[in-house]
């Protein structure tokens, strides 16, 4: 280390000891400083200057504009599989939103309106009896016969009450009367209609 310029007049290489004492603030002066009042005084003056520097720095430091705010105490870390309710709810909401949009935009097909049970099937089966020429799964009953609109139009059902106006005892006769104009040349119904007419005669 290069020799420092002396700050005392005692002629010895004392300045280094002064700086060491001031920097270390070791308390008791040792070596040359203990013997030389001049150097001891210089060390004391330097200490006082440095202390004054510290005090001045504090004086010229403003107070903190506000208190330090810490985050809310952290909850213990969960394992990656331990999802809380929030992410699960968020995921479910996102899924619903995406599906809703997909259906709304026609990307996802829902398969159209639900299939209607064929209510006419038992009736058709009963009418067919043992006839091997019967049409079997004939869609006529489903699409025309039991549709309420047709029944209402034909006067078979009261529009307001929904009650059927025909006589329960003559249901088959009424039905055949109703179906005659619509059945056309269908051999199955034509046979039944003729049978009914002959039985009446």
């Amino acid at each position, binding site marked *: 280390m290069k020799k420092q310029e002396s700050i005392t007049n005692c002629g010895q290489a004392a300045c280094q000891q002064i700086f060491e004492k001031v920097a270390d603030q070791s308390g008791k002066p040792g070596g040359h400083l203990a013997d030389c009042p001049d150097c001891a005084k210089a060390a004391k003056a330097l200490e006082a200057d440095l202390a004054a520097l510290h005090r001045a720095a504090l004086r010229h*430091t*403003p107070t903190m504009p506000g208190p330090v705010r810490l985050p809310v105490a952290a909850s213990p870390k969960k394992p990656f599989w331990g999802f809380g309710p929030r992410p699960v709810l968020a995921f479910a909401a996102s899924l619903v939103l995406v599906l809703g949009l997909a259906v709304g935009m026609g990307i996802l097909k829902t398969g159209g309106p639900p299939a209607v049970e064929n209510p006419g099937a038992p009736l058709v089966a009963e009418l067919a009896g043992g006839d091997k020429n019967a049409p079997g799964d004939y869609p006529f009953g489903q699409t025309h016969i039991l549709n309420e609109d047709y029944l209402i139009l034909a006067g078979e059902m009261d529009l307001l009450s929904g009650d059927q106006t025909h006589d329960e005892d003559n249901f088959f006769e009424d039905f055949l009367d109703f179906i005659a104009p619509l059945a056309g040349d269908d051999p199955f119904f034509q046979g039944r209609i003729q049978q009914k007419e002959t039985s009446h005669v």
Partner: protein
Amino acid sequence: MEAMASFNRNSFDAGPDAELVEKARNGDRQAFDRLVQIYSERIFAMIYARVRNAQDAQDITQEVFIRAYKNMAKLHEAEKFVPWLFSIARNRVTDFKRKKRFLFFWGGSNEVLPAADKVDEEAGGQTALDGLLSREFWSQVDVFAAKLSTGEKEVFFLRFLDQLKIPEIAQVLNKSQSTVKTLLYRAVAKFESDRKLVEYIRKEAS
């Protein structure tokens, strides 16, 4: 206010209560809050001496304690709490200055730090005269600091403005104690020879 009451404006407190640090290390939030009360003003003063803006110093202080809180478990020895806290503060200040320089370079900011004329006169309820005196003081300090090397400046500030002991400075700077002493002796010699600053300080003190 308790935080203010615990901060002595003439000097800094002695080391922390090791028991308090130990409790905070084990996750005791109240113990950590108490450490914040004890050290926030001291860390703020340390940062303010380097950035010279109260709001920036406040923000960095906040960041320092949040980092300390998150990394408290990594502090292995309770007695090293103070140098550990100061090393976090020093790193935050370095980052802050780097960002400032980057913004200045790319035209995002008009400020370059540190600069004596950037003393925050509005902060801390200072009057205009106080502001002028503060500006003058920090200007003198900057003139003196410009005569020191980076290492000398760091150890001088940590020793005489922040009142850390040599072993603590060595921990903050991650240097050996002998290196710190060498830098400090040189810095003290330069301080002693800076008659203008010494006379100014003596005049102010009287």
